[in-house]
């Protein structure tokens, strides 16, 4: 990781938000990591490779979920849905795949040794503890972390394949060096 020659990756992701916020991101040509974000400071994307359709649906579901559960966009001039597609440019040394087999094997080995998972939260906390240890050992923080997450909750009329997919990769960015493109529904 840290000793690798510098090379960069370009990852592709979608981000669901309000039109007001999307306009601000496009205007500034930058995603800002908000300290008030529902899921903590950072910028969050649904990963995709060639076909954006599922990542677009999940971005829309996140927007609905954030509205329903947390009233995130209440107060925005235009709280209606906007979906941004972004290229996330990151140095290989600053990227970590928390869904890799290697990391999962470390997670399971540690959980078994320390008898950790009394709850799902404890198990997820252990992921973070291990990630922080890796960062400490290599002497720098990862800027983009890939993680597999459950897909957001069900909505009437949603295509069943969204749920059958069960898990979907997301990118969690401290600071997102992105180029964005506005896609409006």
């Amino acid at each position, binding site marked *: *990781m840290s000793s690798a020659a510098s090379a960069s990756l370009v990852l592709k992701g979608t981000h669901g938000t309000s039109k007001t916020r999307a306009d601000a991101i496009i205007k500034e040509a930058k995603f800002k990591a908000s300290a008030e974000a*529902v*899921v*903590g*400071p*950072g910028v*969050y994307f649904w990963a995709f490779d060639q076909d954006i359709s599922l990542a677009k649906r999940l971005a829309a579901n996140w927007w609905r979920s954030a509205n329903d559960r947390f009233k995130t966009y209440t107060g925005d001039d235009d709280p209606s849905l906007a979906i941004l597609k972004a290229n996330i440019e990151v140095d290989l040394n600053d990227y970590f795949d*928390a869904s890799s087999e*290697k*990391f999962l*094997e*470390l997670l399971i*080995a*540690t959980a078994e*040794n*320390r008898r*950790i*998972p*009394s*709850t*799902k*939260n*404890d198990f*997820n*906390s*252990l*992921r*973070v*503890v*291990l*990630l*922080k*240890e*890796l960062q400490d*050992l*290599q002497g720098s923080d990862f800027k983009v*972390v890939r*993680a597999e*997450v*459950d*897909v*957001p*909750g069900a909505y009437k009329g949603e295509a069943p394949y969204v749920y059958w997919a069960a898990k979907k990769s*997301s990118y*969690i960015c*401290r600071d997102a060096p992105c180029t964005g493109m506005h896609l409006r529904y």
Partner: protein
Amino acid sequence: MDDLFKKVFERIVSLSDEELRERLDRAVDHPLFKVLEAMSSWSLLTTVSVDAAMKHDLESYLQSQDISYDDLVLSDELLAANDAQYALAA
């Protein structure tokens, strides 16, 4: 496990229970924890025991899938048989 991951494992294994508990408690403010929690299909159940979460998952599964109770009993029996085979192989 490569060297870096081995070092991480050894560091965590060497922590006292109190030190590890403190680190686990601090981890809940991290974006990775937050996003896993927010997206969890058990989002209301992330603080309950594994047994309670599995019970909830099973109930959801029974309500949402085209599968009968008999199918589940059969799958449990098959799993148990596999466990026995696995134990013998080990």
